[in-house]
């Protein structure tokens, strides 16, 4: 489980996306994204293999027809 997000990881992912970061940007971004990343990771959600993004639409439409 991720306890925090390291600035080194932020710098690496941004570099892979070819997006330049300002000086001290990686540290600021790491602080900003730590809450959602760690909160989501902490839930340790086990998704069935069959679940895909479009599953949302199926659930939505099923309720609308009920």
């Amino acid at each position, binding site marked *: 489980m991720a306890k925090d*997000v390291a600035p080194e*990881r*932020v710098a690496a*992912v*941004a570099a892979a*996306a*070819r*997006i*330049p*970061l*300002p000086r001290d*940007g990686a540290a*600021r*971004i*790491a*602080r*900003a*994204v730590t*809450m*959602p*990343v760690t*909160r*989501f*990771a902490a*839930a340790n*959600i086990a*998704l069935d293999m069959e*679940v*895909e*993004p*479009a*599953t*949302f*639409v*199926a*659930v*939505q*439409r099923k*309720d*609308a027809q009920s």
Partner: protein
Amino acid sequence: MSDPAELSLTDLASAIRRRKVSSAEVTKALLARIKKWQPKINAFARVEAEDAMKAARAADRALANGKIRGPLHGVPLAHKDMYYVKGKLSECGSKIRKGWIAPATATALVKLEAAGAFRLGALNMVEFAFGPTGHNVHTGHVRNPWMPAHVTGGSSSGSGAAVGARLVPAALGSDTGGSIRLPAHFCGVTGLKTTNGRVSRANAMPLSFTLDTVGPLARTAEDCALIAAATAGPDPLDPTTDGAPAWDSQAAKRAPRGMTIGIPKSFYVDDLERDVDQALDDAIATFRKLGARIVQVDLPDQTLVSAAALIVIAVEAASYHAPWLRGRAKDYGEQVRNRLINGTAYSGIEYLEALRWRGPALAAHLAAIGQCDAILVPTARSAAPTIAETDVGGGANAEAVILGVTRFMRPVNYLGLPALTVPAAFSKGGLPIGLQLIGRPFRDETLIALGAAFQNETDYHTRAPALP
């Protein structure tokens, strides 16, 4: 006839249709009002007075010949400056799109025009719709018509301010993370965040293809229904609307008697300012009086749902803006640039797991609310803060301020649910307070029915600010 600016959209459309007032008279009155208010609240990005007067006269001529285009015949509206009109500027509150001419018209505007409405101009907004307060370093902050030192909420800041100040009877906003409901709450108007897939997003500026929704801000729930009825339904240009139901006007008129409204036991009721807490209690009493059954509900962890929403919006927004972040990063305001760059920091797996979890999360929410037709919660934990106290730019405090303002917003966006914010009280300081009714997928009409019944019992939506 008295000042047409005082009429709701429903009454105005009816008065024009019955020729109690001409479209040209209405347009002229609203243009005069805009002239007085614009220097105080900065709601408009551009006013298109000449084109609007031409459209108004054409509507009057058609009516004189017995031709009615639709339920909004001859009604002047204005919309957030992210709804494209072919051949016209759409600057999206930004420096980057300064001078940008749209190549096509938004489907929502095409449908409103088919219903007989026309545009008075374009409304200011937060840069690229990515901010909840209404601050904008490029176009100037939009100011709250009730107290101009206070925020309007965002990102549909101009839409909230213009409807609140009675400069237009209704306006389109967009809601990806609260951008319709927050301005409705802070400016004392009614705002409908539609079910994802209900209204076409085609040729509206995107922020998050998963979470973006189109919807109206207006004076009343009934007014929102008029706009939603005109704009809802399938559009081949937006595949997410495939199979979307047309608007059901009868369902929007159901009486609340026999409906069930859920009140969450936690999260939405925690740490509220006293005025908001009281507004919620009063609204519960009103719905009880109207015959609705009130039950407590135990929702799944909303902080987890909010975290998933934050991941999805951040990555998708960063993806849209990546080309400009590579080449024109300095042309963004600091806060928007910082928040966009944040989206580059999530891994592919984190993003896709957040996206894949959306279906199971919606199923869990629906199981938790059982047979509830809606849940009733605050829109925010307080009335509008001041512009100064939330003017945090891209500083260290920015994320905390943004998360505080949007605390009750993100679950609705992540779960794709409809939500209606209705004015429900005023703070001791004299600022509006709105509550949100959150519905079931594609049951936007139920929220309209509940909102309209609530507004029949209360008068908060009828109060208007005085010229500052």
